[in-house]
C-alpha cells in the first residue's frame, strides 16, 4: 500500500477527495475540453487516432486484469473456466453476427455451467 492510495490516509474526507480528483475531475476534464474545442478540432486527426489506441490498449489491460486477477467471488473460479467462458462468449458473439447480447448471454451460461461442473 502506497501512502497516497485510497485507504492511505486516515481521515474521513480523504477517500472522497480521492474519488473527486481521480474519478470526477480526471474524467470530466476531457468532456469539457471536448465542448471547448468542438468547433476547431476533429476526430479524423492522427493525434486522436494515437490517443485512442493508447486508451483502448489501457482498457484492454483493465479487462485482462479483471479476468486474470479478479476480486471477490470470481477469484474462486479456476483460471481455465474464466478464460473458457470468455472464449465461448467471444465465439458466440462472432457466430451471432457481432451481437454483444448473444455473446454476453452465452459467455455467462458457459461460466455458470462450468461452476456447476465444479471447475
Amino acid at each position: 500500500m502506497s501512502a497516497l492510495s485510497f485507504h492511505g490516509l486516515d481521515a474521513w474526507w480523504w477517500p472522497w477527495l480521492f474519488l473527486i480528483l481521480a474519478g470526477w475531475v480526471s474524467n470530466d476534464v476531457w468532456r469539457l475540453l471536448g465542448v471547448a474545442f468542438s468547433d476547431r478540432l476533429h476526430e479524423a486527426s492522427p493525434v486522436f487516432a494515437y490517443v485512442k489506441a493508447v486508451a483502448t490498449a489501457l482498457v484492454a489491460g483493465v479487462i485482462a486484469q479483471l479476468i486474470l486477477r479478479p476480486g471477490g467471488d470470481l477469484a474462486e473460479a479456476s483460471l481455465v473456466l474464466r478464460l473458457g467462458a470468455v472464449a465461448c462468449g467471444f465465439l458466440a458473439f462472432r457466430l451471432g453476427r457481432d451481437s454483444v447480447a448473444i455473446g454476453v448471454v452465452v459467455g455467462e451460461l458457459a461460466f455458470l455451467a462450468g461452476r456447476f461442473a465444479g471447475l
Partner: protein
Amino acid sequence: MRDPRRARPSDPPTSGLGWFLAGQRQFVSLPAAILMAAFVGFGGLARASGVGLPETLFLVGFVWALPSMIVVVGAIQAGTPLLATMFAVALSAARLMPMTMALMPILRGDRTPRWVLYALSHFVAVTAWVFGMTKLPDLPRSARAPYFAGFAVTLTVVNMGVAAASWWAAARLPPSAAAALVLLTPLYFALSLWRAAARVPAERLALVFGVACAPVMHALAPSIDLLLTGVIGGTAAHLAGRLLARREAAPSTEAADLTADLDGSAEGEGRR
C-alpha cells in the same frame, strides 16, 4: 447501430419539457438494457473490490464512463497512489474528448447556452453518444438538447439504482451468481469494444496488445502496470496499424505510395 424505429413521436411536442419527456421514453431500448446489465456487473465488482455503496453511487453519477470507473475501482483495490490513478483515468477517458467534439455540433441549437452544452457533455459515453449521433439529426434543432437530456439523465439515474441494487444483492447471492455478475463487466467490454473497433485495424490490435501486455507489465511494475500497458500496447498497435494500412493501400508505384500516405493520415474518416 442504427435503430430502425425512428425518433419521431406521432404528435411532436412543442415545449422543451415535452421533448425532454419524449427523450425519456426512448430509454426502453436494447442498448439501454445491455448497459443496465453492465451496471449490474459494476455494482457487483465494486462490492467485491471493497468499495462502499455511497462511493459506488458517486462513481456512477459523477464519472459515468465505465472504463474510468473500473480503473478507479481497480486502483482502490490495488492500493494505487492518487497521482498514478489520475493518470490512468485521464488516459482511459481521453477518448471522450473526440466523442464530445463530434456530438456537440449536432446537439446544439441556435440559441443553446454554452453552459447547457458543458452540462450535457457529462453524459457523453458510448450508449448516449450513439443515441445522440443517430437520433438527433432527425429532430428540429431546438428540440435536440432537451430530447438528449431526457434520455441521458434517465439512463444515468436508472443505472445508479441498478448499481445500488446489485451492490446490495452481491453479498446475498449464491457465490456462483455473484461471480457471474463480476464476469459481466469484462465480458461486455471485450465484446462491445471489439465491435466498436470494427473499422479501424489499429484499435483491434490495441485490444489484443493490451490484453497481451497486461500480465507482463504487472510482473514488471505492478503500481503503474495499466499506464505502461496503455502506452506500450497502444503505441505498438498504432504503428502496426499504420504499417498495415500502408501495405494494404500500396500497389508499388510511387504515385500510389503518395496517395496511401494521404489516406493514412485520415484513417478515421469512415467513422462517425
